[in-house]
């Protein structure tokens, strides 16, 4: 390919990426602002006013709900960051670390709602744990305190934490490889620092700024989550996003301005919380840095119990779901169902195929596009580092779909799609899935892209290869494992989309998730279990596939790992050749 053709096609792709990934933000944010200020022509509200906000502020229990939401968001983010770090501290470089790393895939594949359903099955007062306790201590009866829907949101915090810890671990792995942790550790040990001291005093201040963006995503998710909070969250009052969801769905349409004002406020809360993370990081890493050089002291962190706890709870949800899906009758306090039945599977079987096909094809298309765009924008951003005139795409802009409450953005996007003369439901839904999956895919690629040894590109260029060839023959294969995982993450994000599918698909498009959520409103545990299982199984297959592909094609890199079981087996491949 001629270089100018390459350049033009790159620019075209870049333009397409920017158009598809960022344009929906305009109607999305406009929609929130307009409805928040009570401008909704369809409801004969044609002037801007603050009625939405006044109604919102007058709502009894608002401050309580907001405080609760902040408590849950901050609590679960803080807890998952601490647990993830303590797991890294105690398990990194251990012999079983590789196995832990492999087990991350099925846990990451487990969608939040499916996990929440399984978590509820385990921990309701009549749940599996209670049944086991009942069997051991005979006839405890049902306790009147429950982790599920408890008034302080502790169950929700716990569930969110368990779900986010693997995500933080996953993102940390790439970052730590980039930080060249092993030589740092060797150095620190030689200075007389214990493992825990080295991690806390030397690696933490490096890890925290790098994991910042991921923590943003975790925080924004826990602050704005609706579906998990509906299953596990407190009810008196509900968390703030659940209230907004209820107002938005209120039969009385005049609550719409209140709901949008709420969505607007939630967006502000999110931004405040993100700055709070930034502030804490600044405090720990920059402002109050005396602790870093204050000597050989460390806090005891329960890393091994944390990993055990996270993995055991995450992985036991699956067998419990499986049991429920075959249970005809399973009443408290039986440990196993008293009557079994295949009928729930049989009844759904015929309808499942179409739904699974739909879900998978949408996920494949949108994840592939999201991946392509993420790669292009990463390349562009790296390019803009070496060419000062080009402004990079700001990370905050990329992150908005991940950080802003989905509900807020979607209403505006939905109205925008309706202005099109004809309805292209699949197009809108796929577009929306690309839009929401993109930031996650981008985030997963971020670490690998940064840690890539750029001099490899230089060497290849000076060997006379064209920039495209350098990318295709050198960079792409080296980063292929990360690309595969990012693709799988994109697929699982797409598979989990409920609101975009429903709101933009006009009900024409049924996916596993839309069915699962609709059925969950009826609370038949068996049917919920089937859909939750399938919801986990499908992304799981793609994670396995991604791992398989990356190992097959990245044979040489994999081989390196196997053959070099020395200390530097965790050094990133791109750096490996550098260290003699």
């Amino acid at each position, binding site marked *: 390919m001629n270089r100018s053709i390459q350049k033009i096609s790159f620019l075209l792709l870049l333009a397409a990426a920017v158009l598809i990934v960022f344009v929906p933000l305009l109607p999305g944010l406009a929609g929130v602002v307009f409805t928040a200020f009570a401008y909704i022509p369809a409801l004969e509200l044609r002037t801007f006013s603050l009625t939405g906000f006044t109604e919102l502020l007058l709502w009894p229990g608002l401050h309580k709900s907001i405080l609760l939401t902040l408590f849950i968001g901050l609590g679960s983010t803080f807890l998952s960051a601490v647990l993830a770090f303590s797991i890294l501290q105690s398990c990194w470089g251990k012999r079983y670390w590789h196995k832990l790393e492999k087990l991350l895939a099925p846990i990451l594949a487990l969608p939040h709602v499916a996990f929440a359903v399984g978590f509820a099955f385990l921990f309701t007062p009549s749940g599996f744990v209670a049944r086991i306790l009942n069997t051991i201590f005979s006839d405890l009866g049902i306790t009147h305190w429950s982790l599920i829907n408890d008034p302080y949101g502790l169950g929700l915090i716990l569930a969110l934490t368990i779900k986010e810890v693997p995500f933080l671990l996953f993102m940390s792995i790439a970052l730590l490889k980039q930080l060249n942790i092993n030589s740092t550790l060797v150095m620190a040990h030689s200075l007389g620092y214990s493992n825990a001291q080295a991690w806390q005093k030397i690696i933490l201040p490096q890890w925290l700024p790098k994991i910042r963006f991921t923590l943003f995503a975790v925080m924004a998710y826990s602050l704005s989550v609706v579906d998990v909070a509906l299953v596990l969250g407190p009810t008196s009052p509900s968390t703030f996003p659940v209230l907004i969801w209820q107002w938005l769905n209120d039969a009385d349409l005049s609550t719409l301005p209140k709901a949008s004002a709420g969505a607007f406020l939630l967006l502000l809360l999110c931004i405040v919380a993100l700055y709070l993370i930034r502030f804490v990081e600044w405090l720990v890493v920059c402002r109050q840095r005396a602790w870093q050089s204050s000597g050989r002291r460390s806090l005891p962190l329960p890393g091994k119990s944390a990993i055990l706890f996270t993995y055991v709870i995450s992985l036991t949800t699956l067998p419990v779901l499986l049991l429920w899906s075959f249970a005809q009758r399973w009443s408290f306090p039986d440990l196993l169902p008293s009557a079994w039945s295949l009928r729930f599977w049989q009844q759904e079987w015929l309808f499942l195929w179409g739904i699974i096909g739909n879900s998978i094809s949408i996920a494949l298309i949108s994840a592939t596009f999201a991946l392509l765009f993420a790669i292009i924008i990463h390349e562009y951003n790296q390019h803009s580092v070496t060419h000062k005139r080009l402004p990079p795409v700001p990370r905050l802009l990329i992150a908005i779909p991940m950080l802003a409450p989905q509900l807020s953005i979607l209403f505006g996007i939905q109205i925008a799609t309706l202005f099109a003369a004809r309805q292209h439901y699949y197009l809108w839904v796929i577009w929306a899935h690309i839009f929401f999956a993109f930031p996650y895919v981008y985030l997963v690629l971020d670490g690998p892209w940064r840690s890539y040894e750029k001099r490899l590109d230089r*060497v290849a260029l000076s060997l*006379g290869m064209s920039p495209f060839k350098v990318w295709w023959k050198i960079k792409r294969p080296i980063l292929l494992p990360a690309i595969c995982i990012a693709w799988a993450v994109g697929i699982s994000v797409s598979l989990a989309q409920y609101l975009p599918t429903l709101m933009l698909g006009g009900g024409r498009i049924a996916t596993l998730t839309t069915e699962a959520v609709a059925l969950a409103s009826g609370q038949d545990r068996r049917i919920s279990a089937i859909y939750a299982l399938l919801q986990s199984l499908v992304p799981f297959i793609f994670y396995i596939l991604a791992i398989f592909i990356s190992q097959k094609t990245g044979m040489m*890199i994999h081989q390196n790992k196997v053959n070099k079981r020395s200390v530097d087996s965790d050094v990133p491949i791109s750096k490996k050749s550098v260290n003699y």
Partner: protein
Amino acid sequence: MSLSVKNLSIIDDHGKMLFSPLSFSIQKGEILALMGPSGCGKSTLLSAIAGHISPDFSYAGEYYLNGVLLNNIAVEKRKIGILFQDDLLFPHLTVWENLAIALPDKYKKEQRKTVARQTLSELNLLALADKAPSQISGGQRARVSMMRMLLAEPAAVLLDEPFSKLDKTLRSDFRNWVFAQIKKRKLPALMVTHDESDVPDPGQSLQWPWDEKQQNNVSDRNIKEKQC
């Protein structure tokens, strides 16, 4: 064949000139060593000639290869090989693939493997052809890296402290071998280093600071050699 630089200067973010404008030319088979402490801008200078512009600096001056102005030629078309202190073998390719990938496009698919293996056997490394770079020793990697650069058939060579990471015993052997290869192929070579012992011929080096007098000496001598 010659590589020449005219009035090259590099200015950093604060507007400070890293060194006074530099001019020299290197004839084929000649190795010019630029000496200097770390941070004096010698690697940046090499990058500029190779075409890898760093955004932290602004540049002025011209570079010619065999009389052709290089400034506006794309990096991959400059035909300038570069060797770093790290071998930078492609980690996902085997040893022979690392060599084959460097061959110009005129080589056919089957030919590429043959040439690569032949090169390896000249280095007595044929047994390692199918190994991954991480499975061979540092000295072996350095030699493969050098051969990879040469297989791309460059018209000039840049050496960026190529020996600084090798231990002493390997170092002088490898250095002599590299210099021999460059002379054998009659390539002009520019090397930056901060180690006196790397310099092949004291007359062919510029000591820091690279003032004009020295530059003139080098250029004069070049001219004299030409006249001979």
